C-alpha cells in the first residue's frame, strides 16, 4: 500500500509543474499533462481500493485500518500530540479515493472541451490538480490536524477556482464569500481541534474505548460540536450555506467537482470520521446535527423550487442532499448497523451515488450553458432536440436524485429514509416530504430546460448543438455509473459503522411510499412545466407571490449576512476601532507631543530677556532650595 503516497504526490507535482511552467506550455500540453496525471491517480486509487477490499478481513470481520505512511511534519513537543502527515486507509477513505479520483478525472476530461480556448487554461488545470491533491489528502488524513490542514487547502483551491474568472466582479465576490464563510466555520473546527487535543491528548483519531478518549470524555461533545461547525461550513449547512449558491460563478466543471461531488461532502466525511466518538460520547450532538441537516434540507429544497438559474437550483439541491446525508448520520444511535446504525452506511452510500449523479447533472448543465450562454431557464426550453446525449444523461441523473428505481439514488435514499424511520417516524416523514420536494424541483428543472417553452428567438440566433466528445464522454460514464451502481454493488459489505459486513435490504414499505410520492411529484412537475403554456405554475406563482419572492431571494439570508458583516462588523466594530486607534490611542501620543510644544509656548515668558527678572528667579531659586533643605 506504499504506493498510495503517489495518489497525493502526483497531483501536487502536477500543480507545481503547471503552476510554474504553465506559462510556457500550450493549452493542449497543459491539459493533457493534468489529465494524464489524474488518470494515473485514478488508476492508483482503483488499484488501492481493489487491493484493500479484496484483502482478507481481520478476525473480527472488519477491514484492517492501514497506515502506510505517517511521519512527523511539525513537532509540537507535547508528547503524544504530534502533527503528523500520512496516509490512513480504511473503508470510508478508500471509498472517498474512488469518488474523488473518478469525478476529478471526469471533470478533467470534460474541462478539456468546456474550457477550450479560455485564457488561463494552464492555471485552471493547475488549480484542479491542487484541489484534487488537497481533497485526497483530506480523506486519507491520519489525524484531525492533517484533516484541518488539507481542509484549508481545499478551501483555498475552491476560492481560486470560483474566482477563476477574476475579471468578473460576481465571481470575485463569490470566491471571497466562499472563503470567508468557510474560514469562519473553520474557526469552530480549529477550536474544536484544540479542545480535542487538549482533553484527549492527541490529534489522532482515537477509538471510543481508548483511555485517551475516556479521559477527555467530558469535553469531547463540545469539541465534536465545534468541529461540526467546520463541517457545516464546508458542507453548506444552514446558516452557513450562503456561499454555495454564489460559488456557482465559477466554471461549471468546478461546480461539478468541488461544489457538488467532493468538497461539500467533506463535512459529511468529517462527521463519519468522528462517528465512533459521536456515538460513544456525544449522541445528542449527533442528533443536533440531524436536526440542523433536516432543516437545511427542507430549506434548500424550498428555495430550489423558486430558482430560475439552473446552477442555483442544482446548488440548492446539493445543499439539500448533503442535508440528507447528515441527517442519516445524525439519526444513528449505535454502531450496530442493524440497531440504529444504518444511517452511517446510508450516508456514505448516498455520498457516493450523489457525487456521481450530481456531478453528471452539473456537467450537463455546463453543456447547456455553453450552448445558450446563460444560466437562466427562460433562455432554454426545448433543448432535448438539440442535445440528445445531454438530455438522456440529465434525465438519468434526475431520476436518480428523485429516488426512482433502479437508479442508484433510489437505493441510497431508501436507506436514509429507513434509517430516519427507525430513529423517529416524524423524522422519516419529514425526510420523505423533502424527497418529494426534491423530485418536484428536479423535474421542474428538467422540463424547464428540455421541454417547456422554447426561447426560439435566442435559439435561432445561436443554434445550440450537442457538446463535443470530450464533454459527452464523462456524461455517459457518469450516467452509466448512476444507472448500474445501485443494484450491482452491495454497499453494506464494504462500509458499515462497526466495520463488519452486513446486507442492506430494501425496506419495502419505505421504498414503496417514497417511490410513489416521488412519482407523484414528478407528475405534478410534468403537468406544471412540460407544456409551452404553464398556466398552473404561473397562477400558483401569482397566488403565493410573497412566498415565491422570499424563496427566490433565498429567504433573505444573504441580506442578513450582508447586514451583519457590513453594517455591524465593519460599521460598528472595525470603523470605530480604526477611529479609536487614530484618534484616541494615536491621539494620545500626538497630544503628548502637542502639549510639550504648547507648554513651551506658554512658559516662554519665563525667559523674558530682562536681566533683573533673571536674577530675581535666581534669588528665588536659591531661597527655595534653602527652604527645601531647612524644612
Amino acid at each position, binding site marked *: 500500500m506504499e504506493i498510495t503516497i503517489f495518489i497525493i504526490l502526483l497531483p501536487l507535482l502536477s500543480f507545481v509543474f503547471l503552476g510554474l511552467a504553465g506559462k510556457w506550455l500550450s493549452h493542449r500540453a497543459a491539459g493533457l499533462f493534468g489529465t494524464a496525471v489524474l488518470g494515473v491517480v485514478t488508476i492508483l486509487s482503483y488499484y488501492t481500493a481493489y487491493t484493500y477490499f479484496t484483502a482478507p478481513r481481520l478476525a473480527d470481520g472488519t477491514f484492517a485500518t492501514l497506515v502506510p505512511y505517517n511521519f512527523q511534519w511539525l513537532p509540537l513537543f507535547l508528547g503524544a500530540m504530534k502533527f503528523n502527515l500520512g496516509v490512513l486507509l480504511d473503508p470510508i477513505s478508500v471509498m472517498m479515493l474512488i469518488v474523488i479520483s473518478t469525478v476529478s478525472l471526469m471533470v478533467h476530461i470534460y474541462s478539456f472541451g468546456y474550457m477550450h480556448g479560455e485564457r488561463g487554461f494552464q492555471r485552471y488545470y493547475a488549480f484542479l490538480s491542487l484541489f484534487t491533491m488537497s481533497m485526497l489528502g483530506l480523506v486519507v488524513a491520519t489525524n484531525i490536524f492533517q484533516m484541518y490542514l488539507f481542509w484549508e487547502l481545499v478551501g483555498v483551491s475552491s476560492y481560486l477556482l470560483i474566482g477563476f474568472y477574476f475579471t468578473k466582479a460576481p465571481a470575485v465576490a463569490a470566491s471571497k464569500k466562499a472563503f470567508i464563510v468557510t*474560514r469562519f466555520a473553520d474557526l469552530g473546527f480549529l477550536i474544536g481541534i484544540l479542545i480535542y487535543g487538549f482533553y484527549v491528548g492527541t490529534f489522532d483519531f482515537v477509538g471510543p474505548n481508548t483511555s485517551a478518549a475516556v479521559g477527555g470524555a467530558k469535553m469531547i461533545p463540545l469539541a465534536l460540536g465545534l468541529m461540526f461547525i467546520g463541517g457545516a461550513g464546508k458542507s453548506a449547512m444552514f446558516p452557513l450555506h450562503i456561499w454555495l449558491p454564489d460559488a456557482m460563478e465559477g466554471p461549471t466543471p468546478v461546480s461539478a467537482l468541488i461544489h457538488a461531488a467532493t468538497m461539500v461532502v467533506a463535512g459529511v466525511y468529517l462527521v463519519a470520521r468522528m462517528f465512533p466518538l459521536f456515538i460513544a460520547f456525544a449522541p445528542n450532538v449527533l442528533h443536533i446535527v440531524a436536526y440542523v441537516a433536516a432543516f437545511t434540507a427542507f430549506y434548500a429544497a424550498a428555495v430550489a423550487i423558486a430558482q430560475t438559474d439552473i446552477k442555483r437550483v442544482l446548488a440548492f439541491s446539493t445543499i439539500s442532499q448533503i442535508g440528507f446525508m447528515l441527517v442519516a448520520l445524525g439519526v444513528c444511535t449505535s454502531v450496530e448497523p442493524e440497531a440504529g446504525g444504518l444511517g452511517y452506511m446510508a450516508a456514505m452510500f448516498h455520498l457516493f451515488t450523489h457525487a456521481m449523479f450530481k456531478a453528471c447533472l452539473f456537467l450537463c448543465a455546463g453543456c447547456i450553458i455553453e450552448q445558450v450562454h446563460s444560466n437562466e431557464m427562460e433562455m432554454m426550453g426545448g433543448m432535448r432536440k438539440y442535445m440528445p446525449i445531454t438530455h438522456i444523461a440529465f434525465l438519468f441523473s434526475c431520476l436518480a436524485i428523485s429516488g426512482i428505481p433502479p437508479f442508484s439514488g433510489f437505493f441510497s435514499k431508501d436507506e436514509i429514509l429507513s434509517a430516519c424511520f427507525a430513529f423517529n417516524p416524524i423524522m422519516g416523514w419529514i425526510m420523505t416530504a423533502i424527497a418529494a420536494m426534491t423530485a418536484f424541483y428536479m423535474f421542474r428543472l428538467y422540463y424547464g430546460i428540455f421541454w417547456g417553452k422554447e426561447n426560439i428567438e435566442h435559439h435561432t440566433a445561436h443554434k445550440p448543438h450537442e457538446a463535443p466528445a470530450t464533454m459527452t464522454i464523462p456524461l455517459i460514464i457518469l450516467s452509466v455509473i448512476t444507472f448500474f451502481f445501485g443494484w450491482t454493488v452491495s454497499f453494506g459489505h464494504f462500509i458499515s459503522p462497526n466495520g463488519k459486513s452486513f446486507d442492506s435490504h430494501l425496506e419495502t414499505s419505505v421504498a414503496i411510499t417514497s417511490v410513489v410520492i416521488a412519482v407523484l411529484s414528478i407528475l405534478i412537475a410534468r403537468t406544471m412545466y412540460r407544456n409551452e403554456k404553464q398556466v398552473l405554475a404561473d397562477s400558483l406563482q401569482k397566488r403565493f407571490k410573497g412566498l415565491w419572492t422570499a424563496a427566490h431571494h433565498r429567504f433573505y439570508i444573504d441580506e442578513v449576512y450582508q447586514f451583519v458583516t457590513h453594517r455591524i462588523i465593519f460599521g460598528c466594530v472595525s470603523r470605530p476601532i480604526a477611529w479609536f486607534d487614530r484618534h484616541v490611542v494615536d491621539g494620545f501620543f500626538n497630544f503628548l507631543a502637542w502639549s510639550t510644544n504648547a507648554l513651551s509656548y506658554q512658559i516662554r515668558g519665563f525667559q523674558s530677556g530682562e536681566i533683573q527678572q533673571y536674577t530675581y528667579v535666581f534669588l528665588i531659586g536659591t531661597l527655595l532650595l534653602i527652604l527645601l533643605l531647612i524644612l
Partner: protein
Amino acid sequence: MNLLSIFVLIPLLMMLGLWISRNLAQVRTVMVVGASALLISAITLTVCYLQARSAGATEEMLFRADIIWYAPLNIAYSVGVDGISVAMLLLSGIIVFTGTFASWRLKPLTKEYFLWFTLLSAGVFGFFISIDMFTMYLFYEVALIPMYLLIGVWGSGRKEYAAMKLTLMLMGASAILLCGILGIYFCSGATSMNILNIAHAHNIAVSQQLIWFPMTFVGFGVLGALFPFHTWSPDGHASAPTAVSMLHAGVLMKLGGYGCFRIAMFLMPQAANQLGWIFLILTTISVVYGALSACVQTDLKYINAYSSVSHCGLVLFAILMINQTATTGAILQMLSHGLMTALFFALIGMIYGRTHTRDTRELSGLMRIMPFLGVGYVIAGLANLGLPGFSGFIAEMTIFVGSFQHFDTFHRTITIIACTSIVITAVYILRLVGKILYGVCTNEHHLKLTDATWDERVAVIVLIVCVAGLGMAPLWISNMISNSVVPIVSNLTLMH
C-alpha cells in the same frame, strides 16, 4: 576572529565600501556583494550550528566569544548563538538580501540610502548575536535611529511626521528599556551584563522583578507593536520606502519579541509568571484589534501595518504562554511574519512605484496588467492568512496548540479569542486582493504599466521560496528553535 563577529564586520566593511564608492554601479556592487556575503554567512552559520548540535554540543549558546570591553563597568562584547538567534540571523540575512534588490532603483542619494540601510542591518545583526545586555542595547539603538533618515528622506506621504513619531516612540521605549536593563543588572548583583550569567548565577528579588519586568517588556514590546504603543507602526510603515518597510517590519519588529523573550522573560521568571496576564490581555487586544483595524483601511501599507500589529501581537502573546510549544511557535511566527510581511511590503512598494497610489479605492484589475506582481501578491496574501503550505500556518498552529495546552482556563479562553484573528485576517486580505487585483482595471493610466523588472523578481521569488519552504518543511527549523527554547522555558516554569 569569532564566526559571529562577521555579521557585524561585513556591514561595517560594506559601509566603508559605500563611503569610498564613486558611482551607482559601485554602490550596487558593494551592496550585492555584501548582502550576499551576509546571506551566505547566515546560511553557513545555520549549517555549522546544526552540525555542532548534532555532534553533541550541549551548551546553551554556541560560538561563544567574550571580549571584555569596559572592565570597570563589567561590560563585555559577548556573542553567542542558540537556535533562536540562528533563525533570526537567517531571517535578517534573507531580508537584507531581498531588501537590497527591492531598493535597486531607488533615487536620489542612493549611496547615502544604502549607508544608513547598512547601518540598520549592522544593528540588527549585532543585536541577534549579542548576549551581553549592554551590547544588545547598543545594537538595538543602532538599528533604530537610521529609520529616521531612511523614512524622512526617502519616504513618501507624511514622511516627516511619521519618521519623527516612529523615532520618538521607539526611542521612548528604548529609554524605558534602558531603565529596565539597569534595574536587572543592579538588582541581580551580577558582576557582568551577560544574560546567561545573570540567568544562571543570580536571582533578582521578586519585588524588584515586578518593577523591572514591565519596563523591560514594554520597552521591547513597543517595537513588537504592543497595544497601545503600536501607533508608530502604521504611520511609519506607510511612509517608509519599500526596503525599509521590509527590513523594519520584517526584522526590526522581531527585535521586540526576541528581546522580550531573551531578556524580560528569561531573566525575570517570577514576574513573567505573575504579571503575564496583564500583557496577555494587551497582546490579545493587539491581535484582534490590529486585524479589525486592518479591515477598514484604504491604504495598502496601512492594511499591512495593522496586519503586522496583529501578527506581531501573536508573537508576544505566545511568548507569554510560557511553554515550549507556544514559544517555539512565537519564534516561528517571527520568522514567518518577517518573511511574509517583507514580501508584502516589497510587492506594495513595487505596485506603488508603478501606480503612484496605494489607495485601494483607486486600484483595480492589476492582475491582468502585472501578472507577476499580482500572483506574488495573492501568494503573500494567502500566506498571511495562514494557508497551509506557507510559513504562517505552521507558526500560528504551533502557537494555538501550544497556548491551548496551558493549564489555566483564562489562558485557554484568550487563546480562543486570539484564534478569531485568523478569520478577520482572511476578511481583509481577500477583500484587498479582490479589490485591487481582480476585476477590470478602471484607470486607463494603469493599463500601460509594466510587470516586475528582474531585480524585483529576484526579491519576490527569494521571499516566496523562503515562505513556502518554511511552510512545507518546518521540521528542522522547528526542532532547532525548540531545543533552544527549552532551557529558557524551563527556567520560567521552574520558577512558577
